[in-house]
């Protein structure tokens, strides 16, 4: 561990750091490594990558700024932080587009070399903010990152232009010193990552060390800081992003169900990482198929399910639109299918790299005809694992397509995750039909593909099974035999059977976990959230309670069907507040189902809720006129 010799070390209970730079500056890499080291050190962490859709927008422009926010703490945290206490700005554009996130009194560390006239101009500054006093309310550290990096790059023998590219490692070194991060894991990581290019490895290592040395020796910083490890529950931990946890959850579920995975997918942001992750794990019998388009991705998954695989398709935004017809077919075929939707800003191409929760009603209703599909939503990055397993359970038990909703925030965000004991993972029993299931009056035995079990699920009879040959399709089928039927009474019966099957899933769900210290109905306000708003809502709830006020919280993982007790829980509260990253989709659903006056708290800015926004909305409902708690207040309070 690097500790300053002459600087005092100040203890912090937490810090929120935001790294911002050009798309080509490696800010995501820097932030990810800083997080990883902090997790290994034992802190609780939560991250918010925030990058543009363009791979490399023109250098130095506002459009090209890529940022990574990480919250590290010595106690359990729920969000990547409302506001950064420290901003690292690699150029003027990064300062311009991220400076406003830092509350007055915060710290800004700039790469002063990048603040030349041309770069200031490109970022739209008419005067240099480092000189014009506009940053007076912040503590600003001006560090010549580019020139110091180029200096050590020269020693590594790399060309000046390439030497300059190591400056993110300088920043990583400086911040590692400033927050007393262990250096060995980062040095090892650099060595592994750049093993194939020894010169780059050398330059990056030197830049990283130069950053540490600069912190130690420059008479710039009054002290450095320490954030002690959090008191995590005993166990083995790893740091996961939502997309990785989701992919692992799919593999685990297929393993428990003893089914091979077939993923049909077309590359799309921010879902592609699930395809990448699954493609790596062929030893689990995972087949990944990069299809010619979104429709082929889901179509092939349905074909694989027909053949007895666990058919999965992953996508986002526009991909869901394209898959709708095929999902309707899967409703009619009554075969297991998983549709993973990593929601992003819409409509149309929308905001490909920004988060939103605006596909709920699409998942619910986005097909022609009466086509019910169960919906499961993940709540945190690591919860994507459990949500994936639950979605697979429903798909294979009820022979139905299932929507698994995640979003850009969960997909790319990460947090420490206490690994489950593999032996404790729930078993998933899947049985293929092997016998005929109908006897005609004349005694002939035959197989009817639409005879249902106690869950109203039809048999999964896979090709290759002698005597069970049958035909299925998208045309309406006769109840039982599965033969084409245009009979009006039969159609209504089939529509109702499919609806009842999905509604019946509620019987397999545990009672809701209502977070209300006074017991259900005790608090004056219930916050009803779903999916990725979990962290912000739970953090907001803590703040409200820290004021001595009461508030209850329920976070839904099952959106269709709702848990059976949801109506009773909602009706136990005077006020129900529904925060959603859309214009009010869950609130419409609960209003329609339960006739409750659910209040909408909307946010559609491509970024997750802040705890303060939740807190303020509750205070308003309670009639308390007060500014929201800031993280600085909380630090003082703790």
């Amino acid at each position: 561990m690097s500790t300053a010799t002459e600087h005092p070390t100040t203890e912090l209970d937490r810090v929120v750091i935001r790294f911002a730079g050009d798309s080509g500056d490696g800010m995501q890499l820097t932030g990810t490594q800083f997080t990883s080291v902090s997790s290994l050190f034992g802190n609780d962490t939560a991250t918010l990558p925030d990058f543009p859709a363009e791979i490399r927008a023109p250098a130095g422009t506002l459009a090209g700024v890529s940022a990574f926010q990480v919250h590290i703490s010595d106690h359990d945290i729920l969000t990547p932080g409302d506001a950064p206490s420290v901003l690292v700005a690699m150029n003027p554009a990064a300062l311009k587009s991220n400076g406003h996130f830092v509350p007055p009194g915060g710290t800004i560390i700039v790469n002063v070399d990048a603040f030349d006239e041309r770069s200031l101009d490109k970022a739209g500054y008419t005067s240099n903010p480092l000189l014009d006093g506009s940053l007076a309310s912040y503590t600003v550290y001006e560090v010549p990152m580019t020139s110091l990096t180029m200096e050590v790059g020269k020693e590594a023998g790399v060309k000046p232009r390439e030497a300059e590219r190591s400056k993110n490692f300088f920043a990583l070194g400086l911040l590692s010193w400033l927050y007393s991060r262990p250096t060995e894991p980062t040095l090892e990581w650099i060595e592994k990552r750049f093993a194939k290019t020894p010169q780059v490895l050398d330059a990056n290592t030197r830049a990283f060390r130069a950053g540490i040395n600069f912190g130690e020796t420059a008479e710039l910083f009054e002290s450095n800081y320490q954030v002690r490890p959090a008191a995590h529950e005993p166990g083995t931990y790893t740091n996961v992003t939502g997309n990785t946890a989701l992919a692992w959850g799919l593999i685990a579920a297929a393993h428990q169900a003893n089914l091979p995975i077939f993923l049909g997918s077309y590359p799309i942001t921010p879902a592609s990482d699930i395809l990448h992750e699954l493609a790596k794990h062929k030893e689990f019998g995972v087949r990944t198929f990069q299809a010619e388009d979104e429709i082929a991705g889901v179509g092939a998954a349905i074909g694989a399910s027909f053949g007895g695989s666990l058919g999965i398709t992953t996508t986002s935004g526009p991909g869901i639109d394209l898959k709708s017809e095929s999902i309707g077919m899967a409703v009619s075929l009554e075969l297991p299918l998983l549709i993973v939707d990593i929601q992003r800003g819409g409509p149309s191409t929308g905001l490909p790299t920004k988060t939103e929760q605006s596909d709920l009603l699409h998942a619910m209703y986005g097909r022609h005809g009466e086509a019910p599909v169960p919906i499961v939503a993940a709540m945190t990055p690591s919860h994507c694992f459990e949500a994936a397993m639950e979605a697979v359970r429903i798909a294979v038990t009820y022979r139905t397509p299932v929507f698994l909703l995640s979003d850009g925030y969960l997909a790319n965000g990460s947090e420490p995750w206490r690994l489950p004991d593999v032996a404790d993972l729930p078993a998933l029993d899947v049985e293929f039909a092997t016998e005929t299931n109908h006897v005609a009056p004349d005694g002939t035995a035959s197989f009817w593909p639409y005879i249902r079990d106690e869950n109203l699920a039809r048999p999964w009879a896979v090709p290759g099974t002698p005597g069970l040959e049958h035909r299925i399709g998208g045309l309406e089928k006769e109840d039982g035999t599965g033969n084409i039927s245009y009979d009006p009474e039969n159609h209504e019966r089939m529509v109702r059977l499919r609806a009842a099957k999905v509604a019946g899933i509620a019987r397999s769900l545990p009672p809701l976990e209502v977070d209300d210290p006074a017991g259900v109905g005790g608090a004056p306000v219930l916050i009803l959230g779903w999916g990725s708003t979990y962290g912000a809502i739970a953090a907001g709830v803590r703040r409200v309670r820290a004021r001595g006020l009461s508030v209850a919280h329920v976070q839904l993982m099952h959106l269709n069907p709702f848990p059976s007790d949801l109506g009773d829980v909602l009706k136990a509260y005077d006020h129900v507040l529904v925060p959603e990253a859309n214009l009010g989709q869950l609130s419409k659903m609960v209003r329609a189902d339960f006739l409750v006056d659910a209040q909408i708290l909307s946010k559609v800015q491509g970024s997750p809720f802040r705890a303060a926004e939740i807190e303020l909305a509750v205070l308003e409902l309670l009639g308390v006129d007060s500014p929201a708690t800031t993280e600085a207040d909380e630090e003082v309070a703790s």
Partner: protein
Amino acid sequence: MTDTATPTTTPKDWTSDQEVRWCPGCGDYSILTAVRLLMPELGVSRENTVFLSGIGCAARFPYYMNTYGLHSIHGRAPAVATGLAVTRPDLDVWVVTGDGDALSIGGNHLIHALRRNVDITILLFNNQIYGLTKGQYSPTSEQGKVTKSTPFGSLETPFNPISLALGAEATFVARTHDMDRKHMQETFRRAHAHTGAAFVEIYQNCNVFNDGAFEKITAKDARPDQLIPLVHGEPIRFGAEAQHGVVLDPDGRLRLVEVADVGEGAILVHDEKRDDPGLAFQLSRLAAGPYEPTPIGVFRAVDRPEYGAAMSHQLLEAQERKGPGDLASLLGSGGTWTVPG
């Protein structure tokens, strides 16, 4: 042809209990009969046979076969079949499609299934019209076609399905027609035996909306002079006395000739195994439409690794290299730390 070691079935075994509901006189009946009669000869079992289809008249085909079947949605059958075929290499997967289904709404899936060389047999019933929606022009209808949706004649250049399949890197490309059961069966037999994607265009008469579209070349008395049988390794000749032939001119073009005029030695010998699909493509362009001498039979049949087998091979390799998947090591693969109890 029947292998004694394989299941013995009769055409009746392959016939489902569902009433066939195509229009009386439809060319689809003769194709269905050809397939039902062929299946026992292939020595395959019903439970390992799957017919998949999209939407259209032809797409009802799976309901009439007593096998596993999936009547999917418009244009998507090659995609659905891809998922099934690559995960179940033990199955015989057939795709039945039409000119609208395969070449219009499903064009993308068709070309990519062919390019990947997925182990499926595709029967494209080409009747040059939309039948199920009652008579609109299709992507294979001749330019100027007057239909309900083109009362002043269609403006579009039609696809040549054989050219399209060859351009899509297909490894097996053939054409047959609904008036010749024997030729259909021999073509289907070859297609079924092919490893990888096999594409068969079947000229099929729609007697309600496009009657007689192929009559000029498929009527019994027209066939000798209008159908050019392609036989691997044989000179390309046709006519009652094999008096006509095809030559490759020095300028690289194919030309129809009288054998007597050029001599037997000058006639082009058909080679379905040529690496270069150029000659097969030229043969597919020999006739401008089904009203002049048109090649039938196998245009191309070459070997290329089959997609599903290649995918399975990667799985086996991974399992050999890493051992069977272990969940605990997967979850720990991103680096872990331990908080002691």
